[in-house]
């Protein structure tokens, strides 16, 4: 517990990183060159469920067009943090935040922020595939229709483009009118990615997108993330260390709500600066 308190102390002082466009390694108080534009910036950002502080004073920049993985033991606040970014936590009445979370420099929890518009720009794919009980076509077209596109031809183009991006087109192009719930779990998850892409978001939040899938489907999703890297800012929560090291550029390690270490993935896995990070990635606790 001593270490937790320490880490928290450190991260508190590591604010104000936006200007330099670099990443702080909280436990080292050292800036490493990240080389990117910060897309989502947390400043002393805490998230509470009632009295309980689930995420504690996080200071971090998420860099634009990179893949950032979030790892940490169960219950450490990974999902809570991720869902805060597109305000999905609004669904939980007891949930509230302090500090600031900025998206393109604007406060996500600002008084005048339109959370509907925000979610259009920050898409999310959930742990369990959750297609609507509608046809494949209608699933993909759901978002575009919401945002005013009703022309059938235009919709068809969007559907095809999104499905191609999600590497699902070849498998479903002949049954777009079939119910999406008839697809396999892996296909459903790629459909969910395609559905999110159809809205043309800037950020893609993935909360353990492969935990409900078999290895083959998992590999497809990982390939997909590789495909999409560079075009979108991607944040992925995962329990799978190999997955984090395979797909991400940067990795955040959370422990009991504290962002313990945040570094380029290769560095974090080969040369962790924090004892706790090391213990976690070497499997000494989980």
């Amino acid at each position: 517990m001593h270490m937790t308190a320490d880490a928290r102390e450190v991260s508190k002082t590591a604010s104000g990183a936006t200007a330099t466009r670099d990443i702080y390694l909280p436990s080292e108080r050292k800036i490493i060159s990240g080389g990117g534009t910060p897309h989502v910036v947390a400043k002393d950002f805490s998230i509470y469920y009632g009295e309980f502080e689930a995420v504690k004073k996080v200071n971090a920049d998420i860099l634009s067009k990179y893949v950032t993985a979030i790892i940490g033991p169960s219950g450490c606040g990974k999902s809570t943090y991720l869902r805060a970014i597109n305000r999905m936590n609004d669904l939980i009445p007891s949930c509230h935040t302090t500090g600031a979370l900025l998206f393109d420099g604007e406060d996500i929890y600002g008084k005048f922020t339109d959370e509907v518009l925000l979610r259009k720009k920050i898409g999310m794919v959930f742990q369990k595939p959750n297609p609507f009980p509608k046809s494949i076509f209608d699933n993909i077209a759901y978002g575009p229709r919401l945002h005013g596109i009703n022309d059938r031809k235009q919709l068809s183009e969007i559907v095809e483009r999104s499905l191609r991006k999600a590497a699902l087109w070849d498998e479903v192009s002949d049954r777009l009118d079939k119910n999406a719930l008839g697809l396999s779990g892996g296909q459903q998850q790629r459909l969910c990615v395609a559905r999110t892409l159809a809205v043309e978001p800037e950020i893609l939040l993935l909360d353990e997108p492969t935990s409900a899938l078999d290895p083959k489907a998992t590999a497809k999703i990982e390939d997909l993330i590789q495909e999409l890297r560079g075009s979108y800012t991607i944040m992925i929560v995962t329990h799978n260390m190999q997955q984090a090291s395979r797909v991400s550029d940067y990795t955040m390690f959370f422990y009991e709500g504290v962002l313990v270490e945040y570094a380029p993935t290769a560095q974090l896995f080969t040369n962790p600066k924090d004892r706790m990070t090391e213990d976690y990635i070497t499997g000494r606790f989980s």
Partner: protein
Amino acid sequence: MNLGTRKILDRSFTAVGFGSIAVMGIALLIVLVPIITNGVGSVFFTGTLEHRKMLFNEFGRGNTEELAKENASSEVYRKQIYGMLSAFEAELETMESEKKQDYLSKYGPVKTALQTLIGPLPGEPEAILTRYKYGQTRWGKAEEKLHEFLYETKWDFSNPDAMSKEYFVSRATEFEGTSLVKLFPFVEEHLEDVLRPEFTVYWGFLTDSSVDSHIFGGIWPEIQGTFFLAVGAMLFAFPLGVIAAVYFTEYAREGFFNSILRSANSTLAGVPSIVFGLFGLAFFINTLKVSESKSVLAGSLTLAIMILPTIIRAAEEAILSVPKTYKEASLSLGSTKWNTIMTVILPAALPGIITGGVISLGRAAGETAPIIFTAAVSVGSAIGLADVFSSPTPALSWNIYNLASEHEAAAEIRHVQYGMVLSLVSIVLLLNLSAILLRARISKKLKG
């Protein structure tokens, strides 16, 4: 607990469960079998020439030539019956006064019984009520009436400690020694020739208006009234109920006001239906004056209030059972809450909502108490759609009660009562069946 005891417990529970289901099944059979057999008899039965005459005269149905032929053939035997009557009447004139008085007092009931059996006799003033213009239209009933014609019912009061006993005296013996004696065996033998029973399918029972307060059937006004009332109630209650359920599940914040609303809703569900009837009269008719007096509108509104809690509950359940992930998915795509409700949550909840709705529709169709004071009349013709705002209507539920308990000839029209009951049961079952089918279809579409 050891394995043996556990097994015994499991078995005995299975036995008890099975037993209670069996008891329910038997009870249902005991109720349903007579309803079905008797109810079917209102449409399919052995009808007499009197039935065909009635249809021809009152509804203009039937083949003129055929009927004339039948009439002629029946007339051959009727003539002989009439002949016997006038022979006896002539014989009466020759009797001495005291004897004549004695026979006259016995002859009156004989004529009445005969008239009930085969229809008006010549020389009598024309009947005003339609029911007296015809003899027995149903052969089963005619056989009962034949017995009443042949035998006088008497009561034996000789034993003061027991209930009086019913016994029959042959009328033929009472007229021993007169010319009328021949009448009784003749009628008994030739009743079929007079009434000409034939297997009849009378769909008009369902589609005709009633003639002379349901004596001959014809329950269309009731069926239509039931339909109007139930559908009218749905028109009000369904949208309101769904909106309320959406409010409770998606918008309401837990709090004092909300918990009061919820308990009000639960209380409403437990209020006896007669209270709704009185409320409907006091509120919709006397206070709001939606119509001058009873009307379909007032009845529908009353029924709507009655079924509202059920619809709200069912819709709430259905909405709550929609996976939260649908909502999350929709919101994460940049949908508004309202849009999420309309395009994702309600469609997914639809099967449950519809089930609740149709169960309520069945209840609205079957309830009697709420419409007694607000919408129902015992006899009336089918009303037009435009009249629903001002006219009351007959309805199956109310008329079943009325025909069974308040009708002046309740015992004579059992078949009409059963026919109405079966119609009501069928309507409710049909509604439920269509709900099940609709639900299955939507569920299948949702499941892919």
